[in-house]
């Protein structure tokens, strides 16, 4: 027993050392982001900035349309999240609590698309969005992402566990299907809804390839696309602190959400893989 405890302590120390190595990359990035442009890096140079340059934050906004990218990411992220919650909850309710011909076929079709990676779809998807005239528009960024197979699967599973007696009681009180959804189902599965919302928002904030295709106009670029563009415009070493600062500012919202809602975040990822 004692030997085992020693072994797991050694394991924990190793895991902690690895964790600190992971974390040190972010510490290094934060410290470097506050350095003066062109301040010495590498062997012999200190990680600590010689002088903390808080004006690097202002220079991010001068260097490009960072505020536009940030606003676009927020608009797209919030819209996609709200639409996913609505469409996935409604579809999960439909697949879980109603009977109609084609229901199972519909559900299986949705689940089958889980296995198709974006790269298989995006060439014809781009053609479609192009034909619809939705390139360089919020519609092109938001609507193709407005629902998700994973979300529907997740909500169906959660709603399956809401007892039918609860629905029947509401029905006897004269509530219609929509009232039941809003006043019985949604409160019963609110925990799953918030995990789904967090997962969708974080994923969308990270989304790079599709916005890169759809939004070539600077006015519609989201943060990942805009950041990548800022980065290739600033290849010189003197730009390093500012582009690092931009990258860090871009992930500030998701890091804050993660630290505040770590449990929900972990739950969402585990559910994404179908492990509860």
């Amino acid at each position, binding site marked *: 027993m004692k030997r*085992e405890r020693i072994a*797991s302590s050694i394991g*924990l120390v190793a*895991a*902690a050392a*690895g*964790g600190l190595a*992971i*974390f040190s*990359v*972010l510490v*290094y990035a934060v410290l470097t982001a506050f350095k003066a442009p062109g301040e010495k890096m*590498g062997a012999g*140079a200190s990680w600590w900035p010689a002088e903390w340059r808080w004006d690097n934050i202002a220079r991010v906004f001068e260097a490009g349309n960072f505020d536009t990218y940030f606003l676009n990411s927020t608009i797209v992220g919030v819209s996609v999240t709200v639409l996913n919650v*609505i469409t996935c909850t*409604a*579809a999960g309710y*439909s697949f879980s609590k*109603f009977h*109609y011909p084609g*229901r199972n076929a519909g559900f299986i*079709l949705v689940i089958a*698309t889980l*296995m*198709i*990676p*974006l*790269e*298989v779809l*995006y*060439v*014809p*998807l781009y*053609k479609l969005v192009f034909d619809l005239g939705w390139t360089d528009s919020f519609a092109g960024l938001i*609507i193709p992402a407005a*629902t998700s*197979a994973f979300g*529907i699967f997740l909500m169906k599973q959660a709603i399956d566990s809401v007892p039918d007696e609860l*629905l029947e009681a509401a029905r006897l009180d004269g509530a219609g299907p929509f009232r039941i*959804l809003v006043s019985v189902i949604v409160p019963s599965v609110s925990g799953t809804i918030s995990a789904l919302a967090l997962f969708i928002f974080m994923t969308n904030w990270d989304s*790079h*390839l599709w916005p890169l*295709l759809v939004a070539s106009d600077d006015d519609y670029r989201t*943060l*990942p696309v805009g950041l*990548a563009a800022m980065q290739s415009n600033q290849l010189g*070493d003197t730009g*390093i602190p500012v582009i*690092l600062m931009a*990258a860090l500012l*871009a*992930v500030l919202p998701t*890091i804050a*959400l*993660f*630290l505040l809602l*770590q449990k929900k975040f972990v739950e969402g990822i585990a559910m994404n*893989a*179908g492990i*509860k």
Partner: protein
Amino acid sequence: MSSTRTMTVLPGRRARGARSLSRRSSLAGFLFAVPALALFALFAIYPAIQVFALAFFDYSLTSAPEFVGLKNFAYLSSDPRFLEATGQTLFYAIGTYGTALLLALMLAQVLSQKLFGAGFVRLLWFLPLATSWVAASIVWRVVLHPDGMLNELLGLDVQWLTSSAYARWALVIMSIWKETGFFLILFLAGMASLPQDVYEAARLDGAGAIRRFWSVTLPLLRPITLVCVIMAVLRGVQAFSPQKVLTNGAFGTEVINLFVYKTAFESARMGRASAVAVIMFIALLAIALVQIRALRRKD
């Protein structure tokens, strides 16, 4: 299921009214699925079908598609760039996800125990997941800079991102940093769901920690391992951002997804890009089936 059960509870409501009510509510029920189904039909099913059609055409966005039969596939089969990208994707996926899976499994074994500080250590490993791929790539561009953190710590003078010998490794190192936490979450969730009494029994039988890991944890974890491996393959073949941001595919780092992107949108060969997508689709399906069989066989 719901209506039949309540009908027997409430025999008095069984008459005509109830039946028409349930028919009405099944229509309403269908309507709830319509927004999602319409979006799927338009933005997933239709493109998935169309990609198979487009693969047999020569097509750029601006001109009319021209039927070319199997020419796209014939071209790809002898295109060194495509073959190179396939190999590069395998290298990246195995290097990154093989390592990340092993690391995550070992970490989960340690961090699933109730030890002081385990929660904090987990947080450190999860943190890269809260960063976006593009932002993380920019951070790593500096870390991998000749005067950056990695060379400094290792006392090396390696051109990580501008040499064919090292660029592919640089991408793997960065991606292990980014992805291990994801699989750690999955393994931890899986281990938490394992029945504890089996462990107690093994412990009472005198099985040591390593023995318990091999003969209790691993077999019980097989379904979760299967999920992790499938997820790893999907994530591996979808890699795009680090390659696009850090090297743009230069120095032997052009993976399939970047190849498709460049073929479709820089060379305007949408038919040929669709042909790659079709090959990917079939390959992924085959890989998933093989994985499911391999991991289920021992049951």
